[in-house]
């Protein structure tokens, strides 16, 4: 098994963090992982993106050209990577920030108003965790328990309230992913 993911959005939306926690959870589940960020100068309003590979064998190239899964938090991300998604691949996108969506018919598409969901939960910071939840709910790529464990280690001391909101967001995402 090998799953290649691109996670992409405006700077600050948490696209790189999505990649980091997916990779960390994959590692916790005993899989091989790689996390490769774009670190060049990006235009304001463009995309910050990361390539993540999760596999049960050694990972050769960490650069994802044709993702199995694209997580798009804004429209420029779909515009930039949407056409590269593998046939029968998966596009997860944030309808609040992607007014034009995608025209592709040969892929699975899951839409979610991630800004609205995060606002309802109580913090815009957890928008990206909704997306992670959807990945888990739809594909079971990494285990929820591993992710919860990682997040707890990361946030429990620093900000226990935010940890709680993160977990709510992930669970909400899982629900959407399972539909």
């Amino acid at each position, binding site marked *: 098994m090998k799953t290649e993911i691109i996670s992409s959005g405006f700077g600050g939306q948490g696209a790189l963090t999505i990649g980091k926690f997916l990779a960390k959870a994959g590692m916790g589940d005993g899989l091989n992982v790689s996390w490769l960020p774009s670190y*060049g100068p990006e235009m304001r309003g463009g995309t910050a993106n990361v390539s993540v590979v999760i596999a049960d064998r050694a990972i050769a190239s*960490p650069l994802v050209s044709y993702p199995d899964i694209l997580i798009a938090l804004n429209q420029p991300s779909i515009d930039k990577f949407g056409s590269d998604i593998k046939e029968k691949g998966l596009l997860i996108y944030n309808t609040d920030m992607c007014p034009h969506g995608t025209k592709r018919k040969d892929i699975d598409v899951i839409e979610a108003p991630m800004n609205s969901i995060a606002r309802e939960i109580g913090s815009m910071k957890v928008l990206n965790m909704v997306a992670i939840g959807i990945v888990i709910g739809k594909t079971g790529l990494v285990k929820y328990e591993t992710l919860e464990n990682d997040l707890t280690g990361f946030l429990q001391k620093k900000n226990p309230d935010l940890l709680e909101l993160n977990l709510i967001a992930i669970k909400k995402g899982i629900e959407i992913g399972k539909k």
Partner: protein
Amino acid sequence: MAEKILMKGNEAVAEAAIRAGCRLYFAYPITPQSELIEYMAKMMPKVDGVFVQAESEVAAINMVYGASGTGRRVMTSSSSPGISLKMEGISYIAGANLPAVIVNVQRGGPGLGDIQPAQGDYFQATKGGGHGDYRLIVLAPSTVQEFADMADLAFDLADKYRNPVMILSDGLLGQMMEPVEFKPSKTKEEMEALDKQHYDWCMYPNEDEPNHHHHEINSLEIDPLILEQHVIKLGKKYDKIEKNEIRYEEYNISDENEVVVVAFGTAARIAKSAIDQLQEEGTSIGMIRPITVWPYPYEAISNVLHEKVRKVVVCELNLGQMVEDVKLAVNGKLPVEFLGKVGGILFTPDEIKAKILGTEGE
């Protein structure tokens, strides 16, 4: 087994260097290497080490030169334009027979270039860069784990031969996160034992030791007859390194190989993806990945050119540098083709596949 940590290459090599006993680090920040200096700034005070952000790369390498004379493990790091600035100092360190570790997280050049991954410093690292007859041992990692492991290896080789060692990485390996396992830190006893190994040449050996005396460290020798002997001795050291320290990886090598690929570092990783895909499609391709790019594994390449091999393909993130060494290894027996990408752009596995199959442009 040690715990696996998800870490950037830049941070992993810094942590591994500290565990290997490095307590002296001098550098100047530059992208895409800055997490390395940042990590050292944070961690060195915690291990009673010395961290100096020098006023320039030239200053940093000269601090390395001076500090190395004390017989302690010393490191500096930079990215391509900064490494160019260090070249004078590197030649002095080599001339003075001193150990030191230099990390180059390569970016696009020439000049200031850009900040994306590249392999354009191959010639500089392996054929000189500084002046005079000297050699660097050059290690080329292709994963974050290997990048970290090479810190330990680099210090050991530097000490063993009293020679500067360069880890030739790139922006991708520096910025990427992968799981890493670290060796345990050197104990106090092990650190003291390392110190003692250097008493026969370092500037001020421990005065409590019997037979201690101070040594002069210099790269200037104005008498040609003495310099002649000094350089001949350096040459013998390089011969010994070439005999003992060649390292490489064989990937998918077999009698069935139709093409042999040669690539190092990041380029080799991408080539592996292409080779795996071709294998699934029924075409057998082998690869030699040099781990030391100096000393170079010429024989390892010539030894795998079995009967079925039609050609050799070299993939590099430059205009064609290592390809010259591959041609020396192949020695005219087979065609050697080259695929390069420059400007900090990476090739895709598909492009490498097309080059191997000869279908590029179709």
